[in-house]
């Protein structure tokens, strides 16, 4: 009997070793994860999105509850996953005990790999005993991240499929941008906040898709500023002085009044009626959060900036992207509502 128990222990130990793999995350940390991962706790909104795209059935919950207008764009099976809070970002809302109670095989963070987040990963892994992976969430890294995570999560085919979409889009855009002179690139202003007077500076994560799509962010104060801060507040004078060709926003408050507000009338983009509303359901097209949700935004923005070279059927493209990435068939009514103000 005693021998049997010893045997059982040995076997368990053996299976544990045999079925665990070592992976290296983007921060260079070596983390031992189970061979089969079935439950993933997403440390923040970007991580929850990439997990949802790759393997929604493994997601233990959403960082926050979805608004009514977001719900139609999330697959019905996963709309109502529990709200589990976030560990990262501005102010953690997750309870570590809840995280442990969810019993995930893995905690995943997708985003910045700055020291703050590396140390948070280390600390949380130590406290909870749950492997914590940190994957570089820079936009450029999208195909790599999709492949890498697809492999770790055991959904390699799906990872490859999504990575190819991103890769094709990137290279298509790159080919075109190579032919455009820097001075010919459209000058874009991202209007945030109800007044439209907050923006992300050039080089910040909040506006990187402007540059990726071959535009120039008018709020360009050099790489030094971009390293220090992402969002800044502007005066209308400054906007008038910058005089952008195109304004992009996702703030309904701002969009609803920009064409009536006398202050904005002299701005070139307003004069030319080139203010565009970026959809934000289920996730933002430009930012909010800065994750893979921005691929469709990138496609849209490139079309916006270079209508002559990138003409495509927006409705068809949106359907395709939402089907592929969000695994959801959107109704005509929902689609119209989503892109109502985004056409060009």
């Amino acid at each position: 009997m005693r021998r049997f128990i010893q045997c059982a222990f040995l076997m368990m130990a053996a299976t544990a070793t045999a079925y665990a793999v070592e992976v290296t995350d983007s921060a260079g940390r070596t983390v031992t994860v189970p061979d089969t991962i079935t439950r993933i706790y997403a440390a923040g909104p970007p991580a929850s999105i990439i997990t949802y795209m790759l393997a929604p059935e493994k997601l233990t919950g959403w960082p926050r509850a979805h608004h009514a207008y977001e719900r139609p764009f999330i697959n019905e099976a996963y709309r109502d996953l529990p709200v589990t809070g976030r560990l990262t970002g501005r102010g953690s809302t997750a309870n570590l005990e809840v995280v442990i109670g969810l019993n995930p095989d893995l905690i995943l963070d997708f985003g910045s790999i700055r020291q703050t987040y590396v140390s948070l990963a280390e600390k949380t892994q130590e406290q909870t005993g749950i492997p914590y992976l940190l994957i570089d969430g820079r936009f450029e890294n999208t195909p790599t991240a999709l492949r890498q995570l697809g492999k770790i999560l055991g959904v390699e085919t799906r990872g490859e499929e999504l990575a190819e979409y991103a890769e094709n889009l990137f290279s298509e855009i790159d080919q075109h941008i190579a032919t455009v002179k820097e001075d010919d690139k459209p000058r874009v202003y991202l209007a945030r906040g109800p007044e439209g007077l907050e923006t992300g500076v050039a080089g910040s994560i909040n506006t990187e898709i402007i540059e990726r799509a071959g535009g120039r962010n008018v709020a360009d104060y050099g790489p030094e500023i971009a390293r220090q801060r992402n969002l800044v507040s502007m005066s209308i004078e400054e906007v008038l002085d910058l005089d952008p060709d195109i304004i992009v926003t996702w703030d309904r408050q701002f969009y609803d009044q920009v064409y009536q507000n006398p202050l904005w009338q002299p701005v070139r983009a307003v004069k030319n009626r080139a203010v565009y509303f970026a959809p934000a359901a289920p996730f933002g097209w430009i930012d909010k959060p800065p994750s893979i949700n921005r691929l469709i935004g990138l496609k849209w923005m490139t079309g916006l900036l270079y209508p002559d070279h990138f003409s495509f059927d927006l409705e068809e493209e949106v359907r395709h992207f939402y089907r592929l990435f969000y695994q959801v068939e959107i109704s005509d009514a929902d689609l119209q509502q989503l892109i109502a103000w985004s056409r060009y």
Partner: protein
Amino acid sequence: MVEILGKTNQSQTVLSGGLLAICLILLSVIASGIGQYPIDYSDIIHALLHYFGIEEEAPDQTIRLVLSEVRLPRVLASVLVGAVLAAAGCVFQGMFRNPLVSPDILGVSTGAGLGAAAGILLSLSIISIQLMAFLGGLITVGAVYLVASSIRQHEPTLILVLAGIVIGSLAGACLSLVKILADPYDQLPAITFWLLGSFAAVDKIDLLGALPLCILALIPMVLLRWRINVLSLGDEEARALGVNPDKIRLFLIFAATLMTAAGVAIAGVIGWVGLVVPHIARLLVGPNFNRLLPIAMLIGANFLLIVDTIARTLTQTETPIGILTAFVGAPVFVWLLFHARRSWM
């Protein structure tokens, strides 16, 4: 103004007042010519001449717009808010007999911040956000006053301050709750920018909304200017000298709160002005409210005009004005502490 003291003090007040007023006018003109959008002073003169019908030719449309809709409202708003914050500071310092008191003492800024944050959270329109801020400030101070006056004690000012601390920290907690609920990619930065204060988005309508409220609030301060001196001797003495401190205090709290809330609603939370400016004014013309109020308002107007001009020109993006007033206000305050005579200035 009736001559209340020796000639020296009287003429000193007139002199300081005159100089400050001239300074304010000059600075306003200079500030109107400075900004991100390049406008020459000749353009300003041209626009003015056209406005008064002397010049036929209309100025450039954008220049006219920037001047009349952006820069002038902003210059005037900083003048107005500087003046009212200083006035409210004088009133509160006198009323609480404490020179370390600022207009925030009863929680008006925290309440306004909470109101604005809630407005941003609910994605209300800008005007509603401002209204929420204004009401938030008034309601918070109203709650403080109600709590304090329901406690019968012989130190009503002390109870008011304590109630202010309690209600203020409660409002602060609610503000934190709103921040937690806010969208971290969108609403949270908006709340943060709002709480730091800025004149960047001030327009004519804001100015026209706040101005009557401020003037309305100024009336009891001017009318009661002598009674405020008596109140600053303490409740018992005021009572013995024939002043009902409770009644006057109610008026003054309402007036000071009304003007501070109006200022905060259009410009966000701006610290230090209401604390430091009354000290400088008292150093110049003494504590008599009759002279203190106009001088403090002029100093406050000059001060905030200068600071806001810096805020909008220091870098290409806006520097939140609350940060700048702290950078200027804190060292000035330390300097004042060093130079304070044994009693307060």
